[in-house]
């Protein structure tokens, strides 16, 4: 069984982004870009399922600019077998990416698609669910455990208040939460090996997908700043402030 794993190239999670002074967006010129952390967990999970003998091939997909090839190479250094880049300089929104992935799923016929639950740039948390809708496949979002049993997927999900386990028929869509696994460090030999792995490149038109954005960003601004308050000397002073100044207890 084959898995398709979607990975997004985003501003590295350690970078503190700055809003551009003309309010058209955040400044991403010359900042470090990396694989979206949730997608790294998705790649790791697929590679583990392959190591367990459940999957036979892990195909990693990225949609975006040429440099997304670096993200694909990272995924292949973790252990993905080959890569697909859907190359475009258009701004890609979740619905467009879900349609591109649907087109690739039709082509590749995977048994499952694994995605990160959200990207840390736009924080949308939509693509996996949209792909599941477009393919009419069952979905298990926010996964913290994935197992195969009797030809079905058993996925434990993080929900408000605790955990929930679903049984899904295949093919299915899974989105990963933080505690599904801890991605391995990539080793130099695996980075070298990844350089030789195949990457196929398509354009959105090749897949018959219109990626025109449906949401217009009118303005990006700084969030309201919260100013630091005061330091209190001791517990008694704190209790006094909470009772008499803030009046919250």
């Amino acid at each position, binding site marked *: 069984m084959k898995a398709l794993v979607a990975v997004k190239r985003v501003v590295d999670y350690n970078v503190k982004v700055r809003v551009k002074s003309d309010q058209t967006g955040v400044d991403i010129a010359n900042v470090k870009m990396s694989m979206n952390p949730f997608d790294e967990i998705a790649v790791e999970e697929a590679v583990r399922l392959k190591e367990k003998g459940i999957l036979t091939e892990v195909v990693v997909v990225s949609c975006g600019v040429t440099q997304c090839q670096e993200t694909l190479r990272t995924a292949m250094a973790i252990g993905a077998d080959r890569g697909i880049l859907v190359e475009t300089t258009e701004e890609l929104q979740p619905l467009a990416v879900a349609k591109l992935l649907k087109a690739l799923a039709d082509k590749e016929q995977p048994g499952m698609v694994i995605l990160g639950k959200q990207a840390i740039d736009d924080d949308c948390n939509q693509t996996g*669910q949209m792909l599941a809708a477009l393919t009419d496949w069952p979905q298990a979002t926010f996964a913290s455990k994935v197992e195969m049993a009797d030809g079905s997927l058993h996925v434990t999900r993080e929900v408000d*208040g605790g*955990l929930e386990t679903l049984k899904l028929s295949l093919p299915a869509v899974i989105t990963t939460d*933080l505690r599904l696994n801890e991605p391995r460090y990539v080793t130099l030999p695996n980075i070298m090996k990844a350089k030789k792995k195949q990457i196929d490149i398509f354009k959105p038109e090749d897949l018959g997908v219109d990626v025109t954005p449906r949401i217009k960003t009118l303005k990006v601004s700084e969030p309201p700043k919260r100013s630091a308050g005061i330091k209190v000397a001791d*517990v008694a002073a704190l209790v006094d402030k909470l009772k008499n100044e803030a009046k*919250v207890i």
Partner: protein
Amino acid sequence: MASLVIAEHDNHSLKPATLNTVTAAIACGGDVHVLVAGIDAGAVAAAAAQIAGVSKVLHAEADVFAHGLAEHMAAQVLALASGYSHILFAATASGKNIAPRVAAKLDVAQVSDITRVDTPDTFERPIYAGNAMATVQATDATKVITVRTTGFDAAATGGSAALEVIQATTSDAKSQFMGSEIAKNDRPELTAAKIIVSGGRALGSAEKFNEVITPLADKLGAAMGASRAAVDAGYAPNDWQVGQTGKIVAPQLYVACGISGAIQHLAGMKDSKVIVAINKDPEAPIFSVADYGLEADLFVAVPELVAAL
């Protein structure tokens, strides 16, 4: 023009997040209807009918709605979608699970986590973990939206909406509910709590976390939260995590004990009304957002605070 709010509930009671979502729907203009899809959820529908500003409650009953699986819930919403300009969900685990599915089936974009309604098609939403705020315009005819509950006040009760029982629409079962482990306790729910006491990595162990944080939470009648570091270290359960990738909270009082204040944690709690930070590191970033900072060893200060309250 009318809005449909999908009620969040456990078949017995209406979750407070629904009230904030209704406020966002009212801001979109037009009539506000609420969908209650569940099993034996009559009490939920009755509660929804009392939300001020709601003109109609649509109540659908089916066994498969018991656990709110996305496939069935989406099918039910889609059956009603043509009558609405706006379809709103709370941005909770449940709402985020269902809303994109509805949007994709309608071939429209979904707007996530809105914190403000500027006009019926223009919304404000945080990006980059709240380090920037985007004002976005949705160009599709139907707006499918998830609402960050901390961005909107809870709608008042005291209304009397019409209650209409509707035929349930469900989907083919390709997913099945197997079970759940939902922590049972008497504490308020994290996202609805007035007071939250949160612990960080400085607690050092699950035992210490429980020993130090629990008495303070008990004393204040507070919900308990944790930083990602504390959750990753196994000191606290996953669903206590406050932050960009965990729960977004905005209580009246947030007490951060031994939490340094990583960006991703601040993203989840900086809209709290009053923030208290107890930390022995004077340079901890948490002090830059705290109204009251106490530079002290939490193992001494927190028990002292419990005694002083």
